């Protein structure tokens, strides 16, 4: 393994794009998780696919046509949520199907494209990030993160309690639409490395890790960004050596981190309960002490909060 991956310009671009995705996707995604709209990123990803196909068909940069369509789709879904008579659920479903169908149809119309060409856009591929893409991604990331930094308190308030935010005089529709547009921008930043069908995972899973280990919104966000950057850079690197699609690699790594965090969280809770149980024990077991008695070989155990205590003197062993 003497090859240094940074010797390859395409890997430099891929790793830079991975870094940008790793920061922006969880930073935007935390508000989607907070609003329980985890699937909206997916809907926007599907619409962006139509944008990509439009780019291929018309010979324009797919990143830019995807951006235009994704922003339009994101704005539409927020307006439907605010004013529409159709439920937002149905509107999102229409986006999913319409986005995929539009993408496949347009790519089929293109003389150079076949639906098979969409695979790199759907699941990510490290070799596809162009110089122009890196510039577009960098500009979008700066814009997204800058707006997030300024508006974070208000986005938190609106995501936490929309009705209260409205009663406090905040422009809820504008903030929600802005969040949808930022989500659209993040989908586009992610389309080369993570892929349009998998991007939502990188908005959601790092935040799920944050939820499992942190007790505050701020702590969740910081954890999610660290996890996001870690898995996207590591996944891109693994993808180079193992020759796997980068998006799938990144997402599976993220899921792995989540499972470890969730198991760790469950274990920590169990230990806490155990400690609390042990601390709470200022009671001497004996006949008639109020705990269920079970004969255990040559002695009696008393069932205490689900633990079996075998008394000896004032102390006890757990059996």
């Amino acid at each position, binding site marked *: 393994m003497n090859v240094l991956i940074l010797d390859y310009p395409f890997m430099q671009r891929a790793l830079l794009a991975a870094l940008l995705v790793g920061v922006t996707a969880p930073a935007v995604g*935390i508000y989607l*998780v*907070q*609003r*329980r709209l985890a699937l909206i990123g997916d809907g926007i990803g599907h619409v962006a696919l139509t944008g990509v196909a439009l780019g291929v068909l018309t010979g324009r940069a797919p990143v830019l046509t995807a951006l235009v369509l994704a922003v339009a789709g994101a704005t539409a879904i927020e307006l439907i949520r605010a004013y529409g008579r159709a439920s937002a659920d149905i509107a999102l479903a229409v986006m999913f199907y319409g986005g995929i169908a539009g993408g496949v149809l347009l790519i089929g119309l293109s003389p150079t494209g076949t639906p098979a060409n969409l695979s790199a856009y759907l699941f990510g591929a490290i070799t596809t990030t162009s110089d122009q893409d890196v510039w577009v991604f960098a500009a979008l990331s700066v814009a997204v993160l800058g707006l997030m930094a*300024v*508006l974070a*308190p*208000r986005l*938190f*308030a609106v*995501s*936490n*309690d929309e*009705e*209260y*935010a*409205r*009663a*406090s*005089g*905040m422009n809820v529709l504008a903030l929600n639409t802005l969040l949808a547009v930022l989500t659209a921008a993040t989908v586009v930043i992610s389309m080369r490395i993570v892929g349009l069908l998998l991007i939502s995972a990188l908005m959601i899973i790092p*935040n799920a890790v*944050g*939820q499992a280990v*942190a*007790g*505050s*919104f*701020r*702590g*969740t966000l910081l954890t999610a960004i660290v996890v996001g950057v870690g898995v996207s850079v590591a996944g891109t690197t693994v993808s180079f050596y193992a020759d796997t699609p980068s998006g799938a690699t990144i997402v599976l790594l993220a899921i792995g981190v989540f499972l470890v965090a969730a198991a760790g969280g469950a274990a920590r809770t169990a230990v806490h309960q155990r400690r609390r149980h042990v601390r709470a024990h200022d009671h001497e077991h004996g006949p008639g002490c109020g705990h269920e008695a079970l004969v255990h070989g040559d002695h009696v155990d008393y069932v205490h909060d689900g633990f079996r205590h075998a008394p000896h003197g004032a102390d006890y062993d757990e059996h």
Partner: protein
Amino acid sequence: MTGFLGGLLTGREKGHRHADAPPDAPVVALRHADVGYGDRAVLTGADFTLRRGEVVALVGPNGAGKTTLVRGVLGLARVLGGDVELFGVPADRFKERWRIGYVPQRNSVGGAVPSTVEEVVGSGRLARRPVLSRTSAHDREVVDDAITTVGLADRRRAPVATLSGGQQRRVLIARALASEPEVLVMDEPTAGVDAASQASLVRTLQRLVAQGLTLLIVTHEVAPLADVLTRVVVVEDGRIARDSRRPGGVP
């Protein structure tokens, strides 16, 4: 409950918040107002004035329109006819929303992501802050005071999801206090709360009234609040049916 009482004892002492305004100036005035959603009025022809320093309960059966009345005041329901004025300004042109604090009827606070008491109460301060401002030392102090007032000073960094239902209600009150409002609108503050918590709530409200706050409370039950109320207004079938200065005067 000791934490709550302790908080009350250590809470800030403040004089009247707006001593410059006339003592009985109207803060909310409805004149023959129709209020509702879309183009459908739920409350019709309502005449109602809330004056500074009053503590008014809005009572009546479910669906009578009492919540619609307060939602009209909060800008959450539409004024479809007549006039609604807030601090002398027509409701649709009223911009100083921080002057009216809102405590919704809710037993849980927060969305899917963990957030601390401080973070949730801090979101109540935003109504006072320009979009591009940073959190000032004064903002932090007001948020701290609000948390202390409701007796949660020792839980300020606790995730709200780990608090009891009664404590989460208090977080919502603190959030409303964080904008240093002149009027507090509360929706069913005593519903589903045990007697001890109700008594604590009443003491908190008495304290806030002593600080100069005006209260408008939607409730099903007047009795637990009798010590603090100055007036009871009955809403029935979308109309204001009775208006009594003594809580005892209501059947």
